[in-house]
């Protein structure tokens, strides 16, 4: 019994660790969808910022600098996406895919140029994000549940709450939501809709930068080619499930965190790694099918 509790605690802990990057990315996706910018370049943005977080840390060994840089990079990319979609009226799917293709090439290219390697770089001397000390919880179940998490993991939860306040309680959030509901109506009152859309999405891009740091400087400090592994798309699905609500994103990203943790746990069973890797993707489709399918059937009645 004791064993199973500590086992569950470990599952809980890895769920938290897997969910936070998805949560942060879906916070950005939430702002994008609320302001009517359909951004599927999240994946490429995440990959690039994860790379830059690692690169800067490797070169300068300054965690603040690397987090700042990752955030900046993510914002820049999100700005480009928003600019192409909103200002130049580009097809949002194509813009997003272009960014993802580019990011894939760009990170691999830099990996080659800077680290002279393909695949994986790691440096054991490299410091990751500072971990939150939970020694006051002792060494029992609670410590297992909440231990080994970085500052940014905790920050992700706070940021979700903060985003809720911003989007639903402040004037700025009110306007962003209005713009998303009816951009023409907002424009008719003289709001510069495009400017708002670009600004809101660009700023929210910063969350992806934080998520990128979690990937390459979080529980492990290494960069692997294509380290984002479709988390950007999963976050898109998570955001779809919660309809862009920041608190809902907590729940939907927890779902995906849990399925990833599940795949991890089942590793030592009869199922092979390759099949386990499918679980989060299947869960994504299943969750969306159940949620949207029920919605659609309800609307019919």
């Amino acid at each position, binding site marked *: 019994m004791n064993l199973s509790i500590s086992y569950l605690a470990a599952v809980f802990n890895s769920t938290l660790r897997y969910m936070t990057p998805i949560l942060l990315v879906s916070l950005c996706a939430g702002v994008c969808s609320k302001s009517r910018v359909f951004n599927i370049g999240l994946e490429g943005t995440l990959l690039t910022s994860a790379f830059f977080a690692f690169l800067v840390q490797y070169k300068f060994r300054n965690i603040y600098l690397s987090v700042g840089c990752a955030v900046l990079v993510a914002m820049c990319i999100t700005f480009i996406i928003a600019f192409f979609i909103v200002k130049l009226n580009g097809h949002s799917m194509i813009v997003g895919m272009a960014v993802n293709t580019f990011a894939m090439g760009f990170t691999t290219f830099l990996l080659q140029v800077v680290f002279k390697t393909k695949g994986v770089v790691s440096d054991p001397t490299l410091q990751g994000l500072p971990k939150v000390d939970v020694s006051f919880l002792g060494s029992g179940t609670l410590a297992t549940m909440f231990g080994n998490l970085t500052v940014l993991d905790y920050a992700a939860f706070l940021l979700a709450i903060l985003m809720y306040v911003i989007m639903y*309680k*402040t*004037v*700025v959030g*009110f*306007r962003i*939501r*209005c713009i998303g*509901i*009816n951009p*023409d*109506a*907002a*424009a*008719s*009152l*003289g*709001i*510069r809709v495009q400017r708002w859309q670009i600004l809101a999405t660009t700023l929210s891009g910063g969350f992806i930068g934080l998520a990128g740091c979690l990937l390459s400087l979080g529980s492990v400090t290494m960069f692997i080619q294509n380290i984002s592994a479709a988390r950007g798309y999963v976050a898109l699905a998570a955001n779809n499930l919660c309809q862009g609500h920041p608190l809902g994103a907590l729940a939907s990203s927890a779902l995906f965190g849990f399925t990833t943790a599940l795949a991890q746990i089942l590793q030592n069973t009869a199922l092979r790694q390759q099949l386990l890797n499918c679980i989060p993707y299947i869960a994504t489709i299943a969750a969306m099918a159940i949620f949207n399918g029920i919605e659609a059937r309800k*609307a*019919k*009645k």
Partner: protein
Amino acid sequence: MIFELRNITKYYGDTLANDDISIHLNEGEILCVVGENGAGKSTIMKILYGLEQPTSGEILVKGQPVRFRNPSDAMAHGIGMVQQHFMLFESLTVAENIVFKREPRRGPLLDKKAMLAAVSELSERYKLKIDPSARIENCPVGLRQRVEILKILYQNAEIIVFDEPSAVLTPIEVEALLQTMKELAAAGKSIVLITHKLNEVMAVADRIYVMRSGKLVAERKKEETSTDELAYLMVGHHPATREIPPVKTGETLLATEELSLHKDGRDVLSKVSIHVDGGEVVGIAGVSGNGQSELESVINGLEAPTGGKVLLCGRDVTHESVHTRRELGMAHISEDRFLWGGAVSGTLSENAIMAKEEREPYNHKGFLRKKKITEYAGSLIERFSVKASGPDSLLGELSGGNAQKLVAAREIMMETPVLICCEPTRGIDIGASDFIHNEILNKREKGDAVLLISSELSEITTLSDRIYVMFEGKIVGEFNRGAVDEKALGLLMLGGKIDA
């Protein structure tokens, strides 16, 4: 003089939309700008609200020349506009809609209490009753318009522009609106009313400008003029009165039996039974949103009813597809030409051949014969005098009226026994709409059945041999031609009762 447009000229490409227009507005007066669709009214309106810049000419506010680069600039000078298509945030509340852009705040937070208080105060001051916490999506059209007006008053507008405000309202709502305008003028606001409905003009206007094909053709004080004179000035000739000869009706070609539709938790259609016989035009009158569009889509097969039957040429087609219904003999001019009725990025040929793409001679064993199709499209263009450079131009390149003509041409030339027309002349000029009306009447003379659904009451009363009135998804009245006047119909449309 609070506001003035001086020698405004506006070109769109090579087309001249406004030719040297000069108008002025005095404080506290109600000024009307009348003209047909396409006379240049809406361009003038867009210029004075900063949505378009004039090619030449100046705008003066209180004697000072100004430039409006966008609606913000216009609003900063106290000009607000009630748009024809409401500009509201559907899923938000009335109060939230009104305060947008000048939100009461507490620090960075939205102050909801102050918001409700401000909105209630405003609504009382101008005697415009609303429920601040109701959601817009649950408000009827008249109420939405009231929200639009309050929104503009909240922005401290001195000049309020109304763009065809009565198009969506019932006669009784129109009366209330005109009363509101008078009260606003009495409270010192200056009002510009842009419309083509002359009886409304005569009811409220102090002064009237008449526009025709981009030019200002006359300025009149209300006392000096009459509807007849204004109509003459607008059109340039006296309107022809239409004689509609009686036609013998044949057997029932289209009927519904106790049609019901339950959607989003309410009955959008309840037990609707109508019939249309060969050789008659049957009109469905009603305020938009009372089930007409649902009736349309159930009859043409885009939506399945929850109960009842649709009969086409004597056959039960309730569970048949759109395709089968069209094959059996139904054509349909849709409510919205660009949303449903056509593909803007398709060529005129492609748009013209829809629903005939499976038929000889246009289709030979699955392959389309381009030549035949182009010929056919060309014949539609010619017969309905659609202004286009040819069958290969895109539908999106056409003006609204011409696109509507093409859609109407396609459906009328299907030569089916049943034609359903929904808002066949919405937003098009008198010439084009006369043309379409004539084609509808020709169809009737041939012995075909026409179902006409329109929110334009005058269209219904002129064309229909029989009229059904719809209210909240039910048929609440049935009249033969001439048995009832527009006022009584309007009352029924709002759920009132009349003595038969």
